């Protein structure tokens, strides 16, 4: 059991720094995962610290809302990489991100979707304009109760992802 724990921990700890650099598109960004008790890491807690691009080392609760979201995504993607499921579902992960970070995260997920299928829920066009397909949901009154209706749009038939926005 401890064997498994250490194997998983080491894998994620080495992977997370690369993922965080790629997500922030900045090599000065750093992410560290460390055991509080290096002899027996499974007994104590695990610390997680990030250095946001261009900033110095500081505790996690000093990060802003958007900086925390990017740090959290790096952890989620690193953990997933250890035992990758065939697909991912992400519900409005872009809520706290500014447009620059939305672009970076959407680009990273587009790249990732080559290996792992990605299904995202979003309200922001800046986030979903790079996808292969859109599933549009709209409410309709049926028999006095609101029901969800669905339309789909396959974007792979348009030459450039950028054209997707004109198609909508």
């Amino acid at each position, binding site marked *: 059991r401890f064997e498994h724990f250490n194997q*998983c921990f080491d894998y994620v700890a080495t992977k997370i720094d690369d993922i965080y650099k790629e997500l922030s598109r900045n090599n000065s960004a750093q992410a560290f995962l460390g055991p509080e008790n290096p002899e027996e890491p499974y007994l104590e807690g695990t610390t997680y610290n990030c250095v946001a691009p261009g900033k110095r080392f500081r505790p996690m609760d000093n990060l802003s809302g958007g900086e925390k979201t990017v740090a959290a995504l790096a952890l989620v993607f690193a953990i997933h990489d250890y035992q990758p*499921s065939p697909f991912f579902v992400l519900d409005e992960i872009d809520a706290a991100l500014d447009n620059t970070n939305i672009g970076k995260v959407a680009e990273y997920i587009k790249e990732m979707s080559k290996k792992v299928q990605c299904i995202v829920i979003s309200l922001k066009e800046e986030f979903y304009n790079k996808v292969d397909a859109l*599933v549009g*949901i709209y409410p309709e009154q049926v028999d006095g109760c609101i029901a969800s209706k669905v339309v789909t749009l396959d974007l792979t038939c348009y030459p450039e992802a950028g054209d997707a926005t004109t198609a909508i």
Partner: protein
Amino acid sequence: GFLECIEVENFKSYRGKILIPFKRFTAIIGPNGSGKSNLMDAISFVLGEKTSSLRVKKLSELIHGAPINRPVANRARVSATYRNEDGEKTEFSRIIKGSSAEHRINDKVVSHAEYTKEMEKINIFIKVKNFLVFQGQVESIAMKNPKERTHLFEEIS
């Protein structure tokens, strides 16, 4: 492999049978309250997620119309079609009947344990949930305390 499509039947805000296809990178869009998160609940439900993570207290509340005491039926169903690298299709289904859920693989009834085992063969570990991020949860993932983080690693390994 990948998730080719899911079919929902009388599940939450979805009335009747509705088929939803997916590609490599798919976005679900629509206004507030239209049913986007309900679709994620449908995907989580068919993979074996427990009721409390689906924003309801009992299975029967997942049936369309139940929260306003006008359920349209006494059953609801979600089926997911998975296609593996070799192009073979497997259909996973979960059906709510009254207060319990039935599990089916390619339309054959199986036990909950068998269903979970088949899922794990395609690397879907619903207990660990390392592939689902529910609405509003992303920031709290970064702010877990050290002990919770160790626990996370234990579940995965």
